[in-house]
């Protein structure tokens, strides 16, 4: 398989995953805010999760619902917006249309055009839910189409590599940003009268925020089945980082990366990076991290993900 093509399908998969993850993020935040006291949490955390905060503040003075959603959904200048991600996915696929089943191309094309033509509805509060739902479904349809109709050869390995790296990246970002204020009892959202009993039960608003962390990763139901306890910070963290079965947990993504790499030639370099990450996940003491050092730990995971990406580039895409 051509290096250039491998690179294109890899990025295509990353961008589709990015579009899906971003849609999920907005959708859950939207619903969460309805349950929280006014002016409590707002839309700023989403900027940090998407990693686009610096760019946002270059062009926007105020963090409000409309600005943030516009930035995350329809801003062509922002490479992390859903519209940009889909348009990049499309461009990457356009140049590699010969290796991907044409239904996938039709599907991406359709999804891109839908988003492009429905931005106004997507901005409105009432239309937003349906708009985001279609993006989620559209992205998953593409993922399913590829799984079901594309031969599982090297090209598909690169699709999976792209998808799982992006997915792990998003999970770590969400955990990082959301837990920063939740874990150490510094939630910005205070319920007014606090008594001892409530202290022990945890702040009710904390609770729904943890639930929203799970929901933004589509993980709530699976968490419930797996953990069977009330939603508590450290358990949620453990689930999202170390659960071996949930497809968006970092550990699961790591395993997927390992499997996708297995059949690729010259995989020593990237495999080494993945092994390092595996070790790091295995060694993590979640209960301790929950009270201290989580941010540093996530930082390290993200550096690991970056290193895997760099290895793929030098091994497969950019070699001479």
């Amino acid at each position, binding site marked *: *398989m*051509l*290096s*250039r*093509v*491998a690179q294109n399908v890899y990025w295509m998969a990353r961008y589709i995953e990015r579009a899906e993850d971003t849609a999920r993020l907005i959708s859950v935040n939207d619903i969460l805010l309805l349950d929280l006291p006014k002016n409590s949490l707002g839309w700023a955390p989403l900027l940090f999760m998407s990693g686009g905060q610096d760019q946002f503040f270059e062009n926007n003075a105020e963090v409000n619902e409309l600005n943030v959603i516009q930035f995350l959904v329809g801003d062509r200048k922002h490479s992390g917006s859903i519209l940009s991600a889909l348009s990049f996915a499309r*461009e990457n696929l*356009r*140049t*590699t*249309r*010969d*290796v991907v089943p*044409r239904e996938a*191309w*039709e599907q991406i*094309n*359709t999804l891109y*055009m839908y988003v492009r033509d429905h931005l106004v509805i997507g901005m409105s509060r009432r239309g937003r839910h349906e708009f985001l739902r279609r993006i989620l479904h559209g992205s998953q349809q593409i993922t399913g189409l590829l799984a079901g109709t594309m031969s599982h050869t*090297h090209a598909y390995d690169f699709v999976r590599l792209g998808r799982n790296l992006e997915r792990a990246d998003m999970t770590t970002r969400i955990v990082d940003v959301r837990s920063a204020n939740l874990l150490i009892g510094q939630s910005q959202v205070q319920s007014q009268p606090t008594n001892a009993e409530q202290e022990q039960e945890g702040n009710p608003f904390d609770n729904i925020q943890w639930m929203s962390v799970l929901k933004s990763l589509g993980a709530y139901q699976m968490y419930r089945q797996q953990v069977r306890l009330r939603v508590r910070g450290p358990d949620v963290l453990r689930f999202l980082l170390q659960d071996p079965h949930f497809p968006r947990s970092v550990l699961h993504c790591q395993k997927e990366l390992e499997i996708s790499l297995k059949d*690729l*030639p*010259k995989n020593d370099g990237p495999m080494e990076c993945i092994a390092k990450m595996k070790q790091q996940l295995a060694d993590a003491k979640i209960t301790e991290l929950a009270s201290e050092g989580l941010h540093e730990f996530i930082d390290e995971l993200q550096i690991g993900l970056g290193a895997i990406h760099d290895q793929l580039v030098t091994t*497969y895409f950019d*070699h001479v």
Partner: protein
Amino acid sequence: MAIDWQHYPTEGLYDELISAPGEPRPSAHWLCEYLASLSDEELNERRTAAELAIQVMGITFTVYYEGGSIDRAWPFDIIPRIIPKREWDHTEAGLKQRVQALNMFIDDLYHDQRIIKDKVFPADVLTDSVNFREQCVGITAPRGVWAHICGSDLVRDKDGTLYVLEDNLRIPSGVSYMLENRLVIKRVFPELFEHQLIQPVDDYSSQLYDMLASLSPRPGDNPAVVVMTPGIYNSAYFEHAYLAQQMGVELVEGSDLVVDDEDCVYMRTIEGLQRVDVIYRRVDDLFLDPEAFRPDSALGAAGLLRAWRSGKVALANAPGAGVADDKVVYAFVPDMIKYYLDQDPIIPNVPSFLCMRDKDREYVLANLDKLVVKPANESGGYGMMVGPHASSKDRKQFAELIKKNPRNYMAQPTLTLSSTPTLCGDHVEPRFVDLRPFILSGPKTYVTTGGLTRVALNKGSLVVNSSQGGGSKDTWIVDVEG
């Protein structure tokens, strides 16, 4: 009823489907009857279905603007153009004859130049040819074939005669649209295919693959065939990707290829370098190899020509094949057929006046308002003048151009072109069409079943190029006798 053939105007036209108001030609009878049975609403539904199919299938072509380019949906008319099988069989024979003579001509030019020594073809036409490549002299092309893929444009005048208008021997495009048009029309009118009278077109890709594979310099079952594209900004990129996908081969860009010191061509893959045997190149000669041609080309791969010359890789079409793709050379094709094959041409040329001949030039200059003037080496309909539609300023300008460089211009009478019913709003009107069949020359010669019908969508226009307001139609070869 939306379509009423009684009111379809055919006066002064040769229409492909309707011979006189209310009278469809025998091969089109059932189609016309069917179309007339559709209500306005049904007809509209069909048109919308086609538009949707084209959008969803992503059938596009690229148009350039200053500073950018954009993908446009492929303009398509749902009413097919029909050619009776018996007529097509005759045309097919004519195309094979023509391409065979053209290949012999190219091979001759790069070797003994017998046709010049025998004074059938003038030496100075060759001297001034911009597509003759010194680098190709003396090269032995397998089976003497240089133009493996040829796209010849056919037009019909109002008396019904079919002519060859030009032969595209460099990098003819359009075949993917021919294939896609059929897919679209199957989605739109599935019921019409139940009759099984329409000849299929789909085997082009496998014919193309077989022909390319036969060129491999290394014997073996699995030659590495690739399609080489200039990239996504090329107007035919869609087609390059499409053909690679249909053949199951890699679509490479120049930067994916390397030529080593042994003159072998490799592509960069995730496993390292991998040998390439056959390149279906959709990059122009001059951009193919910065080492041999334009040094500033970023689209090619350095050393390709060297690899081809030493027989380590096959290029289709061969470099230099474009020497016969010249509107002045075109005028000599009937003579070539006589000279090389000792046969009479089956399909005639459009009568042509060569400005390099004093007598012809005088005639052309005196009749600029009646003639179509074409430069020898442009394609896509650029740089030409349609006399009857040109302003006197344009005509004056072309008179100067002709006087300055007579070798580079030729002229033909303005043909009416045949028309075919085309959906315009909620009714049908005649629009002018041409036809581009594709001919593959390998161990055997293969001609597409029909070809790409291009239609001038603007009323009265004769320009069918998609870059200038043209669209296309599905082309049906229909066997009404069998």
